[in-house]
C-alpha cells in the first residue's frame, strides 16, 4: 500500500512533467491514456532520483521533502496548465472496437506482467541487485534518501561499484523511506513495474509508429517470450538495472522515431527528457544515448541536405536532444571527481595503444557474440528474427525517415562489444560471459518493437495528418517521395521490396 503511494506520488509528478513537455497538442497527436501513464511513471521516477541527488548535495535532511514537494507541485502545475490536454486524453470518444482493444491490452499486459511478478515474488534479488544496487539503497534509506559522499571514497566498498550512477538505489531508497525501513520485497516490486511499462510502451509505440493495432498487441506477447526477461541475471525479477534502462531506451527510441516520422516537436522534447535519464541509470546508458544521438543527427543532417529542414532547425533539434543527456553524463563524472571517488579497474585506459594492442580480441568477441545470439534458452528466436527483419528493413525502407531504425540496436550492440577491447579482466572471456547477455537485454525491447512494426500489411492508406507541414513543395526528389510512401504506410511489407517502397 505504502509502496503504491510512493510510486503514485512519483507518477503524479511525472504526469505534470509529461503534460508540460507535450504542450498544447492537436487531436491527431495526443497520446493515449496508457501511454501517458507509462511516461508519467518513467519521468516521475527519474524526477524523484534527480531531486533526491541534487537536494542531497545541498541539504540532505531535506531531500525526501524536496522530492515529495517537487512531485506534488510538478503534477499540480502540469495538470492545471494543460488540463484541456489531459481532459482530451481521458474523455476521448471511443467506439466499441476501442473498448475491445483496451480489454485485449489489459489482458495481454496484465497477464505478461503477472508472470514476471510471480517470478519476482518467488525469487530473490540476484547478485548485482544486492551487491551493486541494494547496498546503496540501504545507505540512502538511512541518510534521508541520499547516498553519503563518504561511500564513494570507502576502499572497503569498492566491490559495490561506487562509480555506477545512482538512479536505481535512489528510487529503491525512496520506496524504503516511504515503507519506513529497507524492504527487499518492496524493492523487487519495482522491476515488474518496469516490465509493465515496457509492455505498455511496446503497445503504445507499435500503435503510434504504425497506426495499426495488431503490431501493438504483438509486441508485449513477444517480450514475455524472451526467457532472460523473466528469470536470470539481469531479468525483470532480479533487481538489476538492465530492464529499467531497456525500458527507458525503448521510450526514447519510440519518441525519436515518432519525431523523425511525424516531425513533432513535442516528441523530441519527450525523447530528450527520457534519453537524459539513460546515463543516469547505468554507465552503458551513455552508449545507448550515443546510438540514439547518432541516428538522430544523421537523420536531421539528411533532411537538412534535402531541404526538408532548415539548418538552424536541425541544429536546434540536435542540441535540444543531446545537451541534456550530455549534461547528466558529464555532471555525474564531475561529481565523482569532486568527492574523490575511488577508481575502478575494470577497464584499461581508452587509448589508441590499448585499442591496437587488443585488436586481436575481435574474433574471440565476435565468436562469443554469435554464441550468445544463438542461445535459444535465453533469447528464443529473437536475434535471428531481428537479423532478418533488419536486412529487409534496410532494403524495403530505403530512403524513408525510419530507414536507420535497426541501427538503434546494431550500433549499441557493436559499441558494447567494442568496449571489451578495453577490458582489464583476465581472462576477458569471463567479462564477456558475465555481461554480454545483459547488454543485449537492454536492446531487446527495441528489437521487439522493430519486429512488431515489420508485421506485413497489404494496405497503404493515405493519412494527410501525418505529413510534415514544413516540407517545401518544390522538393520532389526520389528520397522525399520515399518518405511520402513511408508516411503513407509505416508498416513494412516484406514482399514489397523494390517496386513499392519508392513509388513512381
Amino acid at each position: 500500500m505504502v509502496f503504491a503511494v510512493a510510486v503514485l506520488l512519483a507518477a503524479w509528478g511525472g504526469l505534470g512533467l509529461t503534460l508540460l513537455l507535450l504542450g498544447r497538442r492537436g487531436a491527431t497527436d495526443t497520446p493515449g491514456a496508457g501511454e501517458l501513464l507509462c511516461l508519467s511513471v518513467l519521468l516521475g521516477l527519474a524526477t524523484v532520483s534527480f531531486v533526491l541527488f541534487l537536494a542531497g548535495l545541498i541539504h540532505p535532511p531535506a531531500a525526501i521533502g524536496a522530492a515529495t514537494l517537487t512531485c506534488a507541485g510538478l503534477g499540480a502545475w502540469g495538470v492545471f496548465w494543460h488540463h484541456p490536454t489531459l481532459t482530451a486524453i481521458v474523455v476521448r470518444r471511443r467506439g466499441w472496437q476501442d473498448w475491445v482493444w483496451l480489454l485485449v491490452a489489459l489482458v495481454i499486459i496484465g497477464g505478461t506482467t503477472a508472470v514476471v511478478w510471480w517470478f519476482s515474488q518467488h525469487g530473490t534479488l540476484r547478485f548485482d541487485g544486492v551487491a551493486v544496487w541494494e547496498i546503496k539503497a540501504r545507505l540512502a534509506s538511512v541518510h534521508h534518501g541520499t547516498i553519503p559522499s563518504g561511500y564513494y571514497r570507502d576502499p572497503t566498498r569498492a566491490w559495490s561499484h561506487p562509480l555506477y550512477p545512482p538512479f536505481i538505489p535512489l528510487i529503491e531508497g525512496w520506496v524504503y523511506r516511504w515503507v519506513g525501513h529497507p524492504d527487499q520485497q518492496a524493492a523487487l516490486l519495482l522491476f515488474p513495474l518496469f516490465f509493465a511499462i515496457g509492455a505498455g510502451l511496446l503497445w503504445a509505440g507499435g500503435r503510434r509508429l504504425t497506426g495499426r493495432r495488431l503490431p501493438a498487441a504483438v509486441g508485449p506477447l513477444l517480450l514475455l517470450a524472451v526467457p532472460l526477461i523473466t528469470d536470470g541475471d539481469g531479468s525483470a525479477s532480479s533487481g538489476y538495472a538492465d530492464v529499467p534502462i531497456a525500458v527507458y531506451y525503448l521510450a526514447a527510441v519510440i519518441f525519436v522515431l515518432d519525431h523523425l516520422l511525424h516531425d513533432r516537436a513535442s516528441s523530441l522534447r519527450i525523447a530528450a527528457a527520457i534519453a537524459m535519464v539513460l546515463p543516469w541509470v547505468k554507465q552503458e546508458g551513455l552508449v545507448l544515448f550515443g546510438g540514439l544521438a547518432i541516428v538522430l543527427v544523421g537523420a536531421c543532417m539528411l533532411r537538412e541536405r534535402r531541404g526538408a529542414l532548415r539548418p538552424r532547425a536541425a541544429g536546434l533539434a540536435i542540441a535540444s536532444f543531446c545537451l541534456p543527456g550530455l549534461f547528466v553524463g558529464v555532471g555525474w563524472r564531475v561529481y565523482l571527481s569532486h568527492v574523490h571517488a575511488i577508481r575502478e579497474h575494470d577497464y584499461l585506459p581508452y587509448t589508441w595503444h590499448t585499442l591496437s594492442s587488443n585488436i586481436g580480441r575481435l574474433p574471440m568477441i565476435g565468436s562469443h557474440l554469435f554464441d550468445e545470439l544463438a542461445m535459444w534458452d535465453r533469447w528464443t528466436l529473437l536475434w535471428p528474427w531481428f537479423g532478418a527483419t533488419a536486412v529487409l528493413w534496410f532494403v524495403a525502407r530505403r530512403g524513408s525517415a525510419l530507414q536507420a531504425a535497426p541501427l538503434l540496436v546494431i550500433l549499441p550492440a557493436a559499441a558494447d562489444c567494442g568496449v571489451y577491447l578495453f577490458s582489464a579482466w583476465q581472462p576477458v572471456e569471463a567479462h564477456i560471459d558475465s555481461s554480454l547477455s545483459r547488454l543485449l537485454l537492454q536492446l531487446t525491447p527495441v528489437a521487439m518493437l522493430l519486429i512488431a512494426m515489420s508485421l506485413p500489411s497489404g494496405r497503404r492508406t493515405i493519412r494527410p495528418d501525418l505529413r510534415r507541414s514544413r516540407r517545401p513543395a518544390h522538393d520532389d526528389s526520389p528520397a522525399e517521395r520515399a518518405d511520402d510512401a513511408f508516411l503513407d504506410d509505416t508498416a513494412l511489407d516484406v514482399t514489397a521490396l523494390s517496386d513499392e517502397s519508392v513509388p513512381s
Partner: protein
Amino acid sequence: MVAPARHSPRWRLVAAWVVWLSAAVACCAIGYRAVHRQADRVSPVADGRAATTDTWLGWLAMDHPTAALQRAAASVPADKAIVVVGSTEEGGLSLAYFIISSLAWPRQVSLVTCAPDDAAPVVVVDTTEPIGALLYIRLEDRGGRSVDTTRISPVVRLERSNAGPGSWCSL
C-alpha cells in the same frame, strides 16, 4: 480523408504473413516453454523484508541472519572497522562479506581468509580505519579468543578486539 487503399498482390501478402506468423509462433512456443521450465526450477526463499539476504545467509544457522548481523555490527563503534574472517575453503564467504559490509555502514568492513593449517592471514579487502572487532565465520579454532566475545550463532562469533593480523588466523 482516407484515399482508396492499394493492395499488394494477395499471394505475396499471404506468403509474408505465413513467414511472419511462423516466426512469431516458433518464438513464442520456444520462449514460453523455457519460461515454464524456469518456473519449475524456482526454489523456496525466506519471508520478510530481508528475504533475499536471509536466504543467502541461511547457511550461517541463525534466525533472521540479516537483522542479527546488523545488530552485531551496530555494537561496534562507528569509527572502527570490522574484519570478517573466514576459511579459504568457504564457498559462501564472499557473498556473506558483501552482505555484512552493506549492513555495517558506516563502519569499514575488511575481509580476511585463513588457509587450513596456516596461521598467516590473507587480506582480501583491507581497511584504512583502526580495527574494532573480528567477525569469525565457521572458524571455531582460530583467532586470539578475546574475552569480549558475542556468539551470534553456532558458527558465527564477534570478538571485540583490536588485535593485529598476527593473531587473526592463529591456530
